[in-house]
């Protein structure tokens, strides 16, 4: 009786032992090294749904090049793409999945400031590196211990430059309508300051609730101050409604908005007379940089915009930092990212160029398609250019890049 049960048990132990041993053989010997997974968390839906998919595509293009050149740390790189839905709650769930299930060393791509503010604490707690385009000043002031960089100029830098431009247009009375978001107050404060210094004036400001079907009363409040220019500091769905309501109210003055709020799709969705003359601003890609030229070819787009170039730079910076660290961890990326993008190393303009030099043991300085990619201690970029467009007959016409 005993013997009969012992035999299968032995056979089981032998099989289990053999299986365990095969499992213990390093995967490299078996020639099937697991791919290196990097997280992408962009808005594929919601207010950021226009930029998110393009950013993901730009990152994928860089990673395809890296893979074609042999991958990272001899492993193929795979992007695991999640949708943050431009919604902090959905973003937190997606980020948790990337960190806890996929165990990525880096998450690239958060867009809305509210989303980044929600995801960033999870990242630094789990030592995951985060790259973002969100502009709210508060983001880099979080205690992120270096696990965060942003390639987008912060609000302070942006608001200051915008106000200088507005004052230079000869505007004397500016009104600001902002969506309820972390960037609303700081942008208002800084723009008010700079307008005053330049001899102009912020005659009023209001913060409106998102997801409303009409902003007639808000428009009335703005028009009571007789502004020459209204700065529409929101996202596309609400700015579209504001533009309609301003037109209906017969407002004759200038309108100024971020380029993500007045996109080509917004122009298509509104009659030309409603959008005529709207001025848009965006942090500009460094159009004179060789990295920009490479991004153009890689993406097959005549003029990659700021978001596509920033996404290009994240995928490059993260790849180079992993190669420099020789380990794919968030901490490795954090400790090495500034060693590959600033300093006296050889200037490189793409990830594969940098990887080649790093493999030869050389020092590099990655210069990006979005700008020089030099970061302060808290993860902000030091300088960047801005592109100003004007809407003429339903099309964007360049005013200047400065």
């Amino acid at each position, binding site marked *: 009786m005993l013997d009969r049960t012992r035999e299968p048990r032995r056979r089981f132990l032998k099989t289990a032992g053999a299986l365990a041993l095969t499992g213990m053989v390093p995967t490299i010997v078996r020639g099937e090294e697991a791919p290196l997974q990097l997280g992408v968390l962009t808005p594929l*839906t919601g207010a950021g749904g226009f930029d998110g998919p393009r950013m993901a595509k730009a990152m994928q293009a860089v990673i395809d090049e890296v893979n074609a050149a042999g991958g990272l740390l001899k492993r193929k790189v795979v992007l695991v793409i999640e949708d943050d839905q431009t919604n902090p709650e959905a973003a937190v769930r997606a980020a948790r999945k990337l960190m806890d299930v996929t165990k990525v060393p880096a998450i690239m791509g958060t867009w809305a400031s509210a989303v980044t503010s929600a995801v960033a604490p999870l990242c630094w707690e789990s030592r995951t590196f985060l790259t973002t385009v969100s502009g709210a000043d508060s983001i880099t002031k979080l205690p992120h211990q270096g696990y965060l960089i942003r390639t987008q100029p912060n609000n302070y830098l942006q608001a200051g430059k915008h106000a200088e431009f507005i004052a230079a247009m000869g505007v004397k009375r500016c009104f600001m309508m902002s969506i309820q978001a972390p960037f609303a107050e700081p942008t208002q404060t800084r723009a008010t300051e700079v307008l005053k210094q330049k001899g102009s004036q912020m005659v009023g400001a209001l*913060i409106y*609730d998102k*997801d409303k*079907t009409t902003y*007639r009363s808000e428009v009335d*409040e703005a028009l009571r101050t007789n502004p020459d220019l209204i700065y529409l500091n929101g996202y596309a769905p609400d700015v579209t409604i504001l533009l309609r309501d301003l037109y*209906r109210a017969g407002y004759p003055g200038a309108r100024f908005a971020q380029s993500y709020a007045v996109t080509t799709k*917004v122009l298509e969705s509104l009659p030309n007379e409603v959008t005529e003359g709207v001025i848009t601003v965006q942090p500009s890609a460094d159009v004179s940089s060789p990295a920009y030229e490479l991004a153009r070819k890689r993406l097959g787009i005549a003029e990659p915009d700021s978001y596509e170039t920033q996404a290009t730079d994240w995928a490059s910076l993260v790849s180079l930092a992993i190669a420099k660290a020789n380990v794919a961890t968030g901490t490795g990326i954090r400790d090495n990212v500034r060693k590959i993008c600033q300093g006296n190393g050889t200037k490189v303009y793409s990830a594969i160029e940098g990887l080649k030099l790093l493999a030869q043991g050389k020092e590099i300085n990655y210069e990006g398609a979005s700008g020089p990619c030099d970061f302060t201690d808290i993860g902000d970029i030091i300088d960047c250019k801005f592109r100003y467009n004007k809407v003429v007959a339903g099309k964007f016409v360049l005013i200047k890049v400065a």
Partner: protein
Amino acid sequence: MPSLGDVGQLAVNGVMAGTILAVPAIGLTAIYAVLRFPNFALASHATIGAFAGYVANARLGLTLVPSVLIAFFVAGVVGVATDEAVLKRFRPAGYITTAIASIALTIALENIVRFSFGNELRGYDLPIQRDWRLGVIRIGPQQVQNLAIAAVTMVALFAFLAFTRTGKAMRAVADNPMLASIKGINADAIGRIVSFLGMGLAGLGGMLIGLDTTIDPLTGFRSILSVFAAAVVGGLGSIPGAVVGALTVGVGEELCLLFLSPDYRSAVGFVAILLVLTLRPRGILGQRAY
């Protein structure tokens, strides 16, 4: 100190917003009255209506009124189909299960719209007109048009419920399903009619919202909370209540701007729910349909 003109303007804006909110709120409350569950799939049906109207208007070149009718019809048909195929099976498991299923359904439908049309914003092919000025009050011609469409729809619905045999049967089922079935009223058929009407109204409401703004797959989802607030404030299950609730929420949200910053506007709808449910748990006009 706000002037009388400001108060008047805010009240006018509130009535406009409230009337448009009333159309889908009636749909929600009618479905609740007959089928006894809050159907959150209303959000995606509003979106479907908005897109059906968009296809009719921007792609097929139809004018406003036929487009609005198509929005109503398509959303209504989808409403009946999804109710038959999905929600009906959940109803025996209780209203909470069915309500949760309706949330899942709305996400699925919203994504079908996203898959078919993409994420970008779209606008109807209608000119935008400047507002009329009546003294100090500013009124938009399009909003008056929307108001008229909403008002005609509501009058037609009230007439249907008051004077037609089917309308009376619907009220009977809402009032007392047991008694109605004893009288030989087919509750299943009435359920289908109410799904058609309710979701049709959601679709029409979605298009009215879209006429004032732009549409994208989240159009319905963005307004569902206000619609729900309107129906609850008015008394879930009461159709005149939905109208009163929508006007209360609409005017309340606007008038609060006299002493609150605009970013608290949404909170007003929910404060209204709290107040009404605390003081009168059945909502302003109780729970009786019609």
